[in-house]
């Protein structure tokens, strides 16, 4: 046993979940105090920049509402383009948050505690960004409420056999459950903030948000049980959501879409893109907000390993997809797969493979894996790659399907790019606001993993 232990690298034998000694009080001082501090100049610059992008995006959306969908480049047969690419992209980004907060909780991975709050917040903001796109894609979003099954004078119900309807239920359930899970985690932290705050209005707000939490043993008894149950349910949910998103494609008969590998392939891609975004945001946040001792190199290292594993799985999925296409002996599917890498959009296919499969291979080296510049490079690469992967799946498949007479070269318009930029603006504006007004680290969960916090575990500290 001992020899096995020594065979492990230092970082796994003695994972520094928290760097250096810290007491619960000092943790509160470090994490909660930033809520009262005036933010740094860099925060203001970032906020102004991202909210301007957001404003641009919303004005482009307003323009689309006024003019109609004709403002975009979409045209038959490419009826799905930037709108659905962005939807799948953003929903995917959200999945890392649920993975970190729910699945890793079930696996008792203690390192999740420091990053779960941030990752969950990113889930919620990403799903908000994602939700915009199907809404504006329907063309007349003020009638989108027709998707809800309510009794109406037409006597018709939504088509529950349609994957698009499954999507409505999956994404709205995912959003509401994520919001609930995030709020539950925040309640004890709101109580801490309530008891620290002096200002009358702020205190009233935190008081309201903490709904009178007082941390009694019976509170915690029910709380922990409920938290684990929701984590277990959210695990199934997060796997179902991107599977359902993939059904939007896989259930149809478009060549290149009609494949059984789609659900696991989409879920893996979602986690891959989401982890890249979490790494990107956390590398910047921890240095700007001075959280290096709580979000340690160990956290970044573990997340980079997850990215590397997902990257290899993505490579496998691409190869399997190609194999399935070849093995199908179907000329249309062969044609579509040739289009992916040699067609009109050949460079998007190669960009996808480069960014998603080749660049993350840098992370095999421990030296490179611990360099911030490499992490940021890989994370941006994966984000770009995963966006273009959806471009390949959607646009390259649609623009030349079964009917050669309908083939069409899709060109996005400036409005398409404006809305894409706007969604990034919205995401980062929300992330920045979150980092400003809420505890970015779940202090309650962190206190429970400080050494000596759990006498029942023989002085150890387990989540």
């Amino acid at each position, binding site marked *: 046993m001992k020899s096995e232990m020594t065979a492990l690298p230092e970082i796994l034998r003695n994972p520094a979940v928290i760097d250096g000694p810290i007491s*619960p*009080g000092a943790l*509160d001082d470090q994490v909660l105090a930033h809520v009262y501090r005036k933010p740094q100049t860099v925060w203001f610059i970032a906020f102004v920049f991202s909210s301007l992008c957001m404003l641009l995006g919303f004005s482009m959306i307003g323009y689309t509402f*006024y*003019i*109609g969908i004709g403002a975009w480049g979409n045209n038959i047969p490419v009826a799905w383009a930037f709108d659905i690419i962005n939807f799948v992209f953003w929903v995917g980004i959200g999945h890392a948050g649920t993975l970190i907060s729910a699945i890793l909780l079930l696996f008792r991975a203690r390192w999740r505690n420091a990053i779960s709050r941030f990752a969950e917040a990113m889930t919620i903001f990403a799903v908000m960004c994602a939700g915009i796109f199907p809404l504006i894609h329907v063309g*007349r979003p*003020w009638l989108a409420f027709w998707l809800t099954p309510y009794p109406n*004078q037409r*006597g*018709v*119900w*939504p*088509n*529950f*056999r349609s*994957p698009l*309807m*499954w999507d409505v*239920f999956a994404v709205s*359930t995912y959003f*509401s*459950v994520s919001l609930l899970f995030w*709020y*539950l985690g925040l309640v*004890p932290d709101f*109580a*801490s903030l*309530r*008891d*620290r705050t002096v200002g009358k209005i702020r205190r009233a707000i935190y008081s309201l948000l903490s*709904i*009178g*939490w*007082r*941390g*009694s*043993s*019976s*509170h*915690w*008894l*029910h*709380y922990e*049980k*409920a938290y684990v*149950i*929701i984590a277990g349910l959210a695990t*199934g949910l997060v796997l*179902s959501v991107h599977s*359902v998103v993939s059904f939007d494609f896989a259930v149809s008969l478009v060549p290149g879409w009609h494949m059984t590998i789609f659900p696991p392939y989409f879920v893996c891609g979602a986690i891959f893109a989401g982890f890249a975004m979490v790494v990107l945001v956390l590398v910047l946040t921890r240095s700007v907000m001075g959280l290096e001792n709580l979000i340690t190199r160990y956290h970044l290292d573990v997340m980079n390993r997850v990215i590397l594993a997902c990257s290899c799985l993505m490579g496998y999925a691409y190869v399997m997809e190609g194999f399935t296409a070849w093995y199908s002996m179907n000329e249309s599917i062969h044609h579509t797969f040739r289009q992916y890498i040699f067609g009109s959009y050949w460079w998007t296919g190669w960009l996808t493979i480069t960014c998603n499969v080749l660049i993350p291979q840098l992370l095999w080296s421990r030296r490179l894996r611990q360099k911030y510049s490499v992490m940021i490079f890989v994370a941006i690469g994966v984000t770009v790659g995963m966006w273009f992967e959806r471009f390949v799946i959607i646009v390259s498949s649609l623009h030349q399907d079964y009917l050669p007479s309908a083939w069409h070269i899709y060109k996005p318009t400036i409005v398409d790019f404006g809305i894409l930029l706007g969604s990034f603006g919205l995401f980062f504006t929300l992330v920045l606001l979150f980092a400003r007004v809420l505890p970015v680290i779940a202090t*309650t969960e962190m*206190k*429970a993993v400080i050494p*000596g916090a*759990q*006498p*029942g*575990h023989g*002085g150890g500290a387990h989540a």
Partner: protein
Amino acid sequence: MHKPAFSILGLFDSAQALMDAIPIVKCGMPAATIETYTPYPIHGIEKVLGRRRSPIAGMVLVMGVIGALAGLGFELWTSGWDYPLTTFGKPPWSWQAFVPIMFEVTVLFACFTAGLGMLFLLNRLPMFRHPMLRSKSMPHITRDKFALAVEAEGQPVDVDAITAVLKGVGAISVEVIEQPAPSGPISPNFVLRAFGAIVVSCAVAAGLTYWAIKLFPVSAPMSHMLDQPRLDPQREEGFFKDDFGMRLPVAGTVARGYLPYTIKNQDDAASLTNPLPGTASVMQQGRQLFNTYCSPCHGLLGNGQPTLTAAYGAKPANLVSQTIRDYPDGKIYHTIMAGKNAMPGYPAELTQDERWAVVHYVRALQRSQNAKDLDIPKEIK
């Protein structure tokens, strides 16, 4: 010295100190109610305190099963029974296609039961007036201290003795939390304010609803679908040189399958007779056409009371009334052809034979809604 208190609270420095103190305090005061307040959950403390297991798992299981049944049942009912839609060539009760939504509804029900059931039912939150929230120890508890409370909830207790016990087991400080005074009767001022708030909220909600239903859907860009350029048939649209949007038939010609109809008013039409026999197949055809074209306004029974009238303000005729029963067939035929009052004519939608089939069916409706003893067949009388 006995006096009433809500609880007596001892603060401890570490989780270990708290865990060590609990059995001693319990041993010293077996009758006392003991509660702990901690900044984070301490595992195993519920066993030391002798708490029962949380019932939340059972609640979640029950609500999850209800969610699954509700989701699947609703899908089967709407898609298989209430309005069967045939899509993807699947049978109406294709349960396999309903699994994803059933799963999502299950998760939704179960998660919200776990989250909200835990907060609202089991932990009885929100509760802003709990005496603990006003104690001086609370800011320490949510930060880094651990409290053990002997709860009296207003009963007179020996404060000094309990304080001594808590000090004895290592409490760094002890606080006596007073029982709050019972809240007085509701003041008239409060009632007035609450009433005012309800009235204002109702007015705002009414205004918003009016805006959302009446004004919003007809404002730009929602109205753009109505404004799109199009050619209306037989209207002056300026498309051709003579300003018409469509060409008129060549003078002196008749389209194939089209008979010219020259009768101008109902009285002239009275002399027309129904050329079709009232056979079962003609009745079937008449019923189908009536249900398609006439029933939206005249109702399935022809009594002028359909489900859709209120929205349009027109008052459709009661076809089974005495006036219309007295009409000759020709007058009914003419009305279908030329329309009457708000009703448009249906010359393009129905052929001549189809119109007469509808007349037959209207007669059948009139008879069925005014049935006499004579109409009942002998064998079932």
